[in-house]
Every structure is written in structure tokens, then in C-alpha cells.
């Protein structure tokens, strides 16, 4: 007799492992908990198509970021020329990344070029003479373009992340993809309209009044007056960093109306400040606010951090200014942040949002077809193969447990096509048993004993079963590589199902047969 004592041990170990991984999810579902509390804390996640939620693919307009950089340099160049008394005949943008300076003919071209080259190191300089006039062409260096694109993309990812956190989505998943795409997944019940708007918007600039009538310390101790809120100064402010301030909740004006932000210097004391310009509608609102609330303090809040809260000195029409404890650099970075607060550098390329009731319906229908299909297959196997059919059914049941265990072990996501994959696996898993049983019947017809027929049946069918499953596995793996979202879920359950059915048919059912044949010394097969 062949000793094959390793098989029962492998079977027990694998089954136990699958159960250990499935239990936390089971406990979570039964006790209706948010996350598992049992070791090893793995769980099967539900895809957005089943639990409802929103999936977005965003594209960051990094070209726009480059354009903004060039715009800014163009302004700086103009100021630089004035500061250094370089006489310019014409200054113009030639394309997205270049501009041309036509020098006044009295100017020493080489000196000017040297000065510009020193200051604008991110540009490639080239000078040429056109119609007797010396021109300097500045073009943004390719590395710099790459750097700006990369930086703006990273910033956009961060911003979307902050937005989503603020929005308070449960278990959001935000990940960059490629050079300019962001994938956002928000599971659960969400207001899609609101989420879309929130995420699409970038820097969140708000103007709010300071609540002077209440004490911030009292608010901090717990009694925040209704209509007010506590905010903190930005973390890199040299004096005020992290200090609390009490603001009125109402937002008087947002950055959506902003059209320009740049650094300027106060001629009186040389202090840098940020000059801001609104579009006509914004300018009107701003004038109204400053007129109505004169001598009150107006806080400038960006992404919930307070930048400064200057007193309104007079009604401001047209250009406003943000003063504060700025150094040259901090003023520059604020202007940058404000400029980046300009709307729409992020576009929605793909969106899918599913309501929770549709997801529930999908789960219900998926489980129903799984149940009916499963019961029919189980009955068929028993009717067709009797006792051996029962063994195949036991293997099938185990198969489903193994798939569930595998899903949990990999923290995989179950989608609706994924459920379809499990259903398909139920039909395919018994295929291997069918192949083995048909072979056993054939061997029996040749007059072999039960024992010999079983051995021959398993041995000869094994290779065919392997081949048949390998091809399905190849298809599933290719699908996993190329598929996305729900389809990937199908590839995962199909692959797990194929591997599990190899195990249950070739090892588990053989173990059961061997146990029955040796320990119970059964002489005739019920097949």
C-alpha cells in the first residue's frame, strides 16, 4: 500500500488557514461591525459596485502649472528690468514656455544678458539680432518643465487628499497613477454632487471676519459661541504659528473670485505683501465687505489655516492686499499658494458612482444565483455519482471557503463580477471531479478493483486537469494585468477559484477516497 500520509496534514493545515482568515470577516458581518476585531484582522472588502460609493479618475492639468510658472516669471522679468534700469523696446510671450525681450538699441546687450542669466537660472538664454535689434529669447529649461509638472502633480495629489479628508469620507483611497492622473475611491454612502464639486476645486481660500466680541480662551475651554469657530495661524508664521483665533463661521468671499496674486513691497517700510485682484464680481463683493465692516479684522484663511487677520482700514475697490509677518520668501510662497488656488487645474476623466440600494440589490441577486446554481450542481453530482458525488460536493463547499479565505488573506476586493467569478467557479470546480470519476468508471469497466480504479483514475486525470486549469488561469492572470476595478475582481476570484479547485479535487477528494478505502475498507465504489 502506498503511504500518502502527507495529504491529510496538508488538507487540515490549508482548511484551518482559510477558516482563520475568513472568521474576522464573518464576525464583522454577523455583529455588524465596521472593521474586524479578531486576529489576523484581514477582511474581504466590498467593491464600490456592491457597497455603493464613488470612483473617480482625475487628470491634473500640469501644462497649466507650467504656464502659470512662465506667467509669473514674465511678471518678474518685467519688474527686474525696471529695477535694474534695463531699457526694453518690447517684451512679449512667444509661446507657452518662451518669451522674447527686444532690447533698446542704446542698451549693452551682453551686460543685460549676463544680468538676466544670473537672475533667471531656470531659463535657457539665447540672443539673436533681428532687423538690427538685439533680442534675448528666454526658454524654460526642459528639466525645469519636468520639475514643475512633477511638483504640481504632487501638490494636486496632496490637495485632493486634504479635500477628501475634510469631506470626511470613510476609508477613502487616493493614489496617483502615471504622470498626471489621480484615482480616488470613496466607498459608502456619499453625496456624489457635493464630492465631485469639492474634489474638483483646488486651494480653498476664504475671507472671514474675526469674532472680537468673544474670548478665544473661553472658546478653547469648550464653550465656542454659536456662529463662531476656532482656527489656527499657519504653521510657518514666524510669530503667530499655531496660535488660535476665533472667527465668524460665515464665509464672506472665496478664492473662486480671485484673478491675480503677486508679491509687492510697501514703499513706506519695504515690507513685502501680497497684492490680490478679484474679478469684477469679486471686486464688488470685496468692496461691500470692506465698506460694511470697516475697522473690523478680516481673516484670510487658506485650507483652514489663518494667514493673517489685518484690520480693514478703508473701503477697498479693485486691488486688495494681504499683509502679515512676511519675509520675502513667505510672501512669495503665499502668492504661489493663492495662484494655485485658481480654479480647475483638475479634470474628471472617469467617474462611476453607485447608490447603496443598487449595490445591495446586486449582492442579493448575486447571492441568489450563487445559491440556486450551487444547489443545482450539488444535487446533480449526488444524483449522477451518488456517494462519490457527495465527496465532490464536500470538495465544492471547501472550495468556496478557500476562495473566501484567499480573498481575505490578500485583503482583496469583492466586486459584482467577482461574485460572478465565484459562481462560475462553482460550475467549473466540479469539472475536475467529473474528469476523475469518469476515468474511475472507465478503469472499473476494465475490471480493476475499487482501490486500483481510484488510483488510476486520479493519476491519469491529473495531467488533463492541470492542463485544463492552467489555460483558464492564464486567461485570468492576463485579465488581472489588464483589467481595472470590477473586472479585476473577477480575475481575482476566478484565479483563486481555479487554484482552489485544483487543490480540492486532486488532494482533498483523494484524501477522502483514501480514508474510506483504507480505514473503512470499502470494497465497492458508489460512483
Amino acid at each position: 500500500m502506498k503511504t500518502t500520509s502527507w495529504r491529510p496534514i496538508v488538507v487540515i493545515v490549508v482548511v484551518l488557514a482559510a477558516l482563520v482568515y475568513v472568521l474576522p470577516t464573518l464576525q464583522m458581518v454577523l455583529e455588524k461591525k465596521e472593521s474586524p476585531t479578531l486576529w489576523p484582522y484581514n477582511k474581504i472588502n466590498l467593491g464600490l459596485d456592491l457597497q455603493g460609493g464613488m470612483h473617480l479618475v482625475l487628470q491634473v492639468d500640469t501644462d497649466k502649472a507650467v504656464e502659470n510658472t512662465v506667467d509669473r516669471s514674465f511678471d518678474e522679468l518685467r519688474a527686474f528690468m525696471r529695477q535694474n534700469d534695463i531699457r526694453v523696446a518690447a517684451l512679449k510671450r512667444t509661446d507657452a514656455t518662451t518669451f522674447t525681450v527686444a532690447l533698446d538699441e542704446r542698451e549693452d546687450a551682453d551686460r543685460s544678458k549676463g544680468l538676466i542669466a544670473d537672475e533667471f537660472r531656470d531659463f535657457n538664454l539665447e540672443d539673436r539680432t533681428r532687423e538690427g535689434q538685439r533680442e534675448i529669447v528666454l526658454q524654460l529649461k526642459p528639466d525645469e518643465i519636468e520639475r514643475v509638472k512633477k511638483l504640481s502633480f504632487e501638490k494636486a495629489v496632496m490637495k485632493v487628499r486634504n479635500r477628501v479628508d475634510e469631506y470626511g469620507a470613510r476609508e477613502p483611497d487616493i493614489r496617483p497613477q502615471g504622470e498626471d492622473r489621480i484615482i480616488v475611491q470613496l466607498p459608502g454612502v456619499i453625496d456624489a454632487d457635493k464630492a465631485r464639486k469639492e474634489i474638483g476645486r483646488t486651494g480653498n481660500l476664504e475671507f472671514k471676519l474675526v469674532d472680537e466680541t468673544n474670548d478665544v480662551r473661553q472658546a478653547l475651554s469648550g464653550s465656542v459661541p454659536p456662529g463662531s469657530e476656532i482656527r489656527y495661524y499657519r504653521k510657518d508664521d514666524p510669530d503667530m504659528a499655531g496660535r488660535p483665533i476665533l472667527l465668524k463661521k460665515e464665509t464672506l468671499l472665496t478664492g473662486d473670485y480671485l484673478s491675480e496674486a503677486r508679491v509687492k513691497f510697501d514703499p513706506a517700510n519695504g515690507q513685502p505683501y501680497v497684492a490680490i485682484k478679484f474679478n469684477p464680481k469679486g471686486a464688488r463683493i470685496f468692496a461691500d465687505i470692506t465698506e460694511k465692516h470697516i475697522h473690523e479684522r478680516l481673516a484670510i484663511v487658506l485650507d483652514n489655516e489663518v494667514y493673517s487677520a489685518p484690520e480693514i482700514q478703508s473701503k477697498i475697490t479693485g486691488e486688495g492686499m494681504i499683509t502679515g509677518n512676511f519675509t520675502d520668501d513667505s510672501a512669495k510662497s503665499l502668492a504661489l499658494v493663492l495662484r494655485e488656488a485658481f480654479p480647475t487645474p483638475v479634470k474628471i476623466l472617469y467617474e462611476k458612482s453607485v447608490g447603496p440600494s443598487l449595490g445591495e440589490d446586486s449582492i442579493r441577486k448575486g447571492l441568489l444565483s450563487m445559491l440556486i446554481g450551487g444547489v443545482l450542481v450539488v444535487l446533480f453530482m449526488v444524483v449522477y455519482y451518488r456517494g462519490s458525488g457527495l465527496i465532490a460536493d464536500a470538495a465544492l463547499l471547501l472550495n468556496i471557503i478557500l476562495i473566501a479565505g484567499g480573498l481575505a488573506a490578500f485583503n482583496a476586493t469583492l466586486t459584482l463580477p467577482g461574485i460572478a467569478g465565484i459562481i462560475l467557479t462553482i460550475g467549473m470546480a466540479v469539472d475536475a471531479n467529473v474528469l476523475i470519476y469518469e476515468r474511475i468508471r472507465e478503469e472499473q469497466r476494465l475490471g480493476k478493483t475499487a482501490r486500483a480504479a481510484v488510483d488510476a483514475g486520479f493519476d491519469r486525470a491529473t495531467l488533463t486537469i492541470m492542463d485544463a486549469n492552467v489555460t483558464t488561469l492564464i486567461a485570468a492572470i492576463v485579465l488581472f494585468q489588464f483589467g481595472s476595478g470590477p473586472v479585476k475582481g473577477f480575475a481575482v476570484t476566478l484565479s483563486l477559484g481555479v487554484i482552489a479547485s485544483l487543490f480540492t479535487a486532486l488532494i482533498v477528494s483523494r484524501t477522502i477516497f483514501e480514508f474510506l478505502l483504507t480505514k473503512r475498507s470499502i470494497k465497492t465504489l458508489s460512483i
Partner: protein
Amino acid sequence: MQIIKPDVNIDFVGRRRFAYFVSAILILITIVSLIFHGGPKYGIDFAGGAELLIQFNQPLPIEEVKAAMNALQLEAVVQKYGEEAEDFYRVLIPAAVAEQENLAQTLKEGLAARTQRQVTLESFEMVGPQVGRDLREKALLAMFFALLFIAVYISGRFELKWLLSAAMAGALAFSVYILRLAHLSIPMLMLAAVVVTLVLFYVLNLKYAMGAIVALIHDVIITVGFFSIFQKEFTLPIIAALLTIIGYSLNDTIIVFDRIRENLRKYHKLPLAETINRSINETLSRTILTSGTTLIVVVMLFIFGGGIIHDFAFALLVGILVGTYSSIFVASPILLAWQKRK
């Protein structure tokens, strides 16, 4: 219990000409249907556009939904969704108008205002043209790679010529790379790759691989044909179903081929046609049973799985049926045709 008696002996090989005729007709119908409909009907995954599932709080005739959509000027296609009462609809918006901002909100509010009903947006999907193009390319590449890997596996396993099949894969990848330099469109590239594969099999004398791959292509074409005739949409899940069919319909073919090889050793004096026919008959019960159990679950999925999964189940249903047929009537006779060539 037995459905097929062990001593069954049907002359499959003798009827192969009739089978060729049936297959040729089905493939012809596919081609005519594809030409007639101007190519396959792409779902929004591939064509771009938007799809919405909307539910009204009270039933509303489809004409009124259509009228309301027309009033919103969105060129939408409105379909009743599910078997339930007239309150659940599927709305398709073409790519040209789908990209406007806040489409979902505009539509929901516009519909609610015009129909005087409460509207719930059960699902909203918007695919920009770029994403559609990417997905189309990915789907075709997936089909191509699945065919390539399976071809290599089959030729390696059945002819035990792993080195040759690896070399073949290299040659195929190389020729596709060259063709790609010529800026062929992806569908043409696919076609070229398939032709190159078949030519390579022919030249390298890989007959089992040839039989398996021809059967696979046969199955995929006819499934695509059914989709075209019933004007069902090609979406990513359908591509997944086609790939599954590629993987699964090989199972039956492998079962038959394995038996043919076994019998060729056992009865080497018999004429090939008889060996093949005998092998098909010997494995007939398992061919039918394995496909049968899978068909049971797929039919249940088709009936009870709900609207989202309906077409997916349909593709599997057609694919598995055609795949079973082709492993008996297409794959094995090709071995015979090969023999006669010499």
C-alpha cells in the same frame, strides 16, 4: 446514473463537413452582421459617454422620460431597466455631450423638474474619450496576450516542444513590434498577430496548437457575432467573459486531445480518422458533463443575476456552448485535415 453509455459510437468525424458548413454559416452571419451594424456596438467603457440608472418614485411611461430627456437636449437613449414596474430606466448619453460639468446633477434636477417626480440616481458612470481609448487598447492587448500565452502553452505541452514554442512566441512578439512601428491600428494589429500565429503553427508543424487556436478563434468570433446580432454592447466585463471563454473552452479541447494522444499510442495501427472519432466518443460524457455543470450556474446567473451582470452571463452562455461544439467538431477534425495535407 449515466447520460452517455460507455459504448456510444457516433460518427463525428464523418459529419465534419456538415459541421464545417454550420461553422462557416455562423461566421458569415457574424461578418455580415458586423458590416451591417458598422462594427461592434461599443458600450461607454470603450466609446466614451455616460450611463445613468434612474429611479422615479412613481411609475412613468418611457415616452415621457424620453420627452423630458429631449427637452434637456442631451441626445440620450432611454431604455427600460429590469423587469419591475415602469419606474427604473437606463439612460445613455453620447460622448459628445457627456463631458459637460455637473452632468449628473443637471440631469437629475432637469428630469425632476420636467416629470414632476422624485428622481434617484442609482448609478452614474462617465467615461471621457481618453479613458475610452485607453481601455479599448488595453482590452485588445489583453485578448492578444491571452491568445499568445495559451498558444505557447498548448504547443509546449502537446508537442513537447517548449523551446520551439518559446522561439515562436519571440517571433510573434517581434513581428507585432515591427507592425506596431508601421502604426497599424490595434484591431488590424490583432488580426495581423492572429494570422502570423497561424502561419507560424503551420510552418512549424504544430498541429495540436493549430487545432486548439483555430477552435478558440472560432468561439470568440461566433460569440462576438451573437452580440452583434442581438445588438448587445461590448463592455469591459464582456471582454472578461471572452477571455474566460478562451481559457475555458480549451478545457474540452484538451480533454479530447489528451485522449487522442493516448489512443494514438495504444492503437497505432488504426487509421487516424477512426482514432480521433473513438477518442471523441470516449470523452463525450465528460465533455458534456463538465460543460453542463458550468452551464447550470451560468444559466442561473443569466436568469437571477440582475441587469448589470445579464450580458456578461449571456456571453459566457454562448461561449461555453460554442466552445463545447468546437472542441468536438472543429479542433479535432483539423488534426485530420492536417494529416491529409501530407
